[in-house]
């Protein structure tokens, strides 16, 4: 990478302001086109047949009667998506999840799909597909799945990460371990030890827009996919791999996105839509219903976590240990490993050990959910930290400040930290008026810290200057949180022109080089870096044009405040030329003026947050109300502060829902009981107070403007902050998320007994 990404302190003109977002008018007037808003001539309607069994062998599938339905143009099963994964277990899991091959692994697992001229024909055909199942015993609960008598989901899974590798198959797919020092020695030095077990239930990302796409395969081997996604280049590669297409011949266009939060980093139905289109030789539109979204896409892990922390009387933590069991659905993954890495990342510990166990169960395949795996680990650790502070008799903020990680600390997951923001967020919390405000009757206050890694990735951007001096930037990272606004501000800053002169668009896969997804809080971090680079390249072109126009050497032309200037006294009488002046002469000075950039944006910088919340609990019903909530987080540099605040508030709102109400509820038969927003309750506006935010700006040394990702960390502390607040309100330690009214009431009743 030739681009110098090192941070350079400088005053800003555009960055840090709060202009209106360019996509706002389309969104509030209904003009914005989401996944289901695209249509093609001759388009068919697709519907998917899903298993009602949690675990069953597919003995046979007969589609003949469905194919005979008038209006049906194609029926596909796993045989229409042959295994082209070449031994890649992760890609095979994606394929098997899209359409079951030998076994269905969860309630909602796709087994066949139909494309027909209308919905009625498609639905009628689904009912005529005959699947002969041999029902197998299932396991849903994370702890039950690890017991010796649990039904084994996959006879080929032998726990990895254990020496020697076991000789009998298991539902524990992998064991990972992190830490340093000697926890036995550390616990022996402790004056106080708290040890507790916690559980969290499975939740869904809850994006308002269901998965939707239109697929069109042509007989010449080309194809198009219009889809709601967080990463159209990644979707292109995965779909091409699964269907045996050449990547460059599959053009993927991302729609506007009605929420993703990690759930749209993963293909679910898109390969099936492409297979239907290929078989029918017609475009196919596939929209998942809300029920399908819950049953067969998304969710995060359910977890079971044991934590033990010891400390001296003066508040110094001497040892910390955690064992984290995370469900990953029916396929092995790395969710527990992420939990094990993040669990103690906020603290400076001499002796720490974490063990992550990946557990396969008969639930949907787990996908990333905003700082994946970190919120559950933080819930368990921050609850224990709170309890330990109380046991020692120390203020919970002071206890955390005393043990907070700082520059030079060896993190619990290995590396030594550079400059980080956990200490400043804690100091800001301690000084925040919320922390000292009086509490009302039946109210409790809780606080918690959270950590997330953040990352960058491959990024490519085009910047084109039109003849009138206005600018378009074409980027390849989907705008999930206002990045078109922030990237326009970045381009305006670098070029020295007005924000209003810039139009940012998301280019499709045929128009731009490869881009990684918008995940890992990387959208603004990475693409702003590429935009700065592209703008600087365009400035270099403009300097060359001005040197030609002024007939002076290139080195005598410099760029400042959005204008080309002549250097020194020799040419000093020339009036500076603006972008508009230079663009007007482009045709005769070399043609179009553009800047291009392709780079890897690494060095994203880790992120920390501290949250404070007040909860009011009705002791008679167990119902609770968030009375006040404050988010304090380091943004490095807030490019568009309103959207940074929006990310802080959005993460907190999702975390509050997760903490108080949301959970997948399964029946004894292994079927999901609440696949809809009536029975799976996410918070609505009337459930929440205004969430206060405080942005800290500790520059990231690895970004020219000091930017850090801000999209994910804000969901990490809420589970713990809420649980601590409820525990303090009712006087009983709440160790099972969600702390829903029935659980609070049960805890209160148990305490009475």
């Amino acid at each position, binding site marked *: *990478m030739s681009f110098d990404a090192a941070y350079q302190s400088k005053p800003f003109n555009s960055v840090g302001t709060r202009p209106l977002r360019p996509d706002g008018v389309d969104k509030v007037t209904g003009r914005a086109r989401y996944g289901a808003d695209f249509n093609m001539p001759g388009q068919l309607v697709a519907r998917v047949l899903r298993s009602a069994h949690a675990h069953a062998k597919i003995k046979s599938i007969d589609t003949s009667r469905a194919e005979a339905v008038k209006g049906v143009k194609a029926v596909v099963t796993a045989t229409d998506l042959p295994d082209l994964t070449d031994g890649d277990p992760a890609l095979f899991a994606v394929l098997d999840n899209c359409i079951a091959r030998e076994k269905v692994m969860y309630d909602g697992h796709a087994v066949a799909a139909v494309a027909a001229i209308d919905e009625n024909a498609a639905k009628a055909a689904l009912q005529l597909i005959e699947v002969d199942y041999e029902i197998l015993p299932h396991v849903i609960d994370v702890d039950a799945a690890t017991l010796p008598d649990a039904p084994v989901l996959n006879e080929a899974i032998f726990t*990895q*990460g254990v*020496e020697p590798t076991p000789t009998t198959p298991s539902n524990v797919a*992998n*064991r*990972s*371990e992190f830490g340093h020092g000697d926890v036995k020695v550390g616990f022996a030095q402790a004056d106080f030890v708290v040890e507790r077990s916690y559980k969290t239930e499975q939740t869904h*990302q809850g994006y308002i827009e269901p998965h939707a796409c239109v697929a069109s395969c042509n007989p010449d081997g080309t194809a198009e996919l219009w889809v709601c996604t967080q990463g159209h280049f990644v979707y292109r590669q995965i779909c091409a791999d699964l269907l045996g297409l050449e990547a460059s011949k599959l053009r993927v266009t991302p729609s506007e996105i009605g929420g*993703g*939060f*990690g*759930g749209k*980093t993963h293909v679910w139905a898109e390969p099936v839509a492409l297979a239907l289109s290929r078989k029918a030789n017609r475009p196919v539109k596939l929209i998942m219903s809300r029920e399908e979204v819950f049953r067969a896409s998304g969710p995060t892990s359910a977890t079971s976590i044991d934590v033990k922390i010891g400390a001296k009387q003066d508040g110094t933590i001497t040892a910390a240990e955690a064992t984290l069991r995370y469900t990953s659905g029916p396929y092995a993954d*790395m969710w527990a*490993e*992420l939990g094990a890495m993040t669990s103690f990342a906020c603290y400076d510990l001499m002796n720490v050990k974490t063990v992550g166990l990946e557990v396969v169960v008969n639930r949907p395949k787990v996908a*990333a*959910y*905003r*700082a*994946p795996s970190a919120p559950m680990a933080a819930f368990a650790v921050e609850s224990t930290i709170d309890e330990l502070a109380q046991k020692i008799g120390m203020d919970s903020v002071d206890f955390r400040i005393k043990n907070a990680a700082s520059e030079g600390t060896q*993190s619990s*997951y*290995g*590396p*030594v*930290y*550079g400059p980080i923001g956990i200490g400043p967020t804690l100091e800001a919390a301690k000084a925040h008026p919320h922390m000292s405000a009086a509490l009302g009757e039946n109210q409790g206050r809780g606080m918690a810290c959270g950590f997330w*890694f*953040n*990352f*960058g*990735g*491959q990024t490519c951007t085009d910047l084109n200057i039109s003849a009138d001096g206005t600018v378009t930037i074409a980027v390849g990272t989907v705008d999930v949180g206002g990045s078109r606004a922030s990237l326009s501000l970045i381009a305006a800053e670098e070029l020295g022109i007005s924000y209003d002169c810039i139009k940012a668009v998301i280019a499709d896969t045929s128009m731009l080089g490869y881009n990684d997804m918008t*995940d*890992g*809080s*990387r959208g603004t971090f990475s693409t702003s870096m590429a935009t700065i680079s592209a703008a600087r390249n365009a400035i270099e072109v403009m300097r060359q044009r001005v040197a030609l126009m002024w007939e002076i050497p290139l080195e005598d032309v410099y760029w400042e405040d959005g204008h080309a200037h002549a250097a020194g006294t020799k040419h000093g009488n020339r009036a500076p030329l603006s972008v508009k002046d230079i663009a007007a002469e482009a045709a005769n000075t070399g043609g179009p003026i553009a800047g291009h950039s392709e780079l*890897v944006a*690494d*060095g*994203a*910088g880790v992120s920390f947050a501290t949250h404070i919340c007040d909860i009011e609990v009705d002791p008679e019903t167990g119902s609770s109300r968030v009375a006040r909530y404050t988010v304090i987080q380091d943004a490095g540099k807030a490019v568009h502060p309103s959207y940074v605040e929006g990310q802080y508030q959005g993460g907190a709102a999702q975390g509050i829902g997760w903490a108080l109400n949301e959970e997948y509820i399964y029946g004894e038969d292994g079927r999901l009981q609440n696949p809809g927003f009536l029975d799976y309750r996410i918070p609505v506006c009337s459930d929440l107070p205004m969430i206060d935010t405080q942005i800290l700006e500790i520059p990231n040394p*690895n970004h020219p403007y000091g930017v850090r990702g801000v*999209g*994910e960390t804000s969901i990490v502390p809420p589970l713990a902050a809420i649980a601590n607040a409820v525990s303090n309100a009712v006087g009983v330690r709440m160790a099972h998320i969600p702390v829903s009214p029935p659980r609070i009431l049960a805890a209160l009743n148990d305490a009475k007994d």
Partner: protein
Amino acid sequence: MFDVTLWAGLRPLADNQKVVRVQARTIWELLRKLEERYPGLAGPIKGEVAVSVNGVIYRNDWSQKLPEGAEIMLMRRLAGG
């Protein structure tokens, strides 16, 4: 010469060593030499590995030069939301 720490899942592929000594100027050279010494690492290095250099995690940019005395760890590539 750097002491490179391997995550637990890699150790069986590298003679069960937790730390491996490697002389390298860039991440690219480091990974190439590791792969030459331990061919079993080839699979993970192609797509599963991130490299932490003095606490900064690199997932893609193998052109990064390695500062003298740098703390280097091989980690799993992270997933994000």
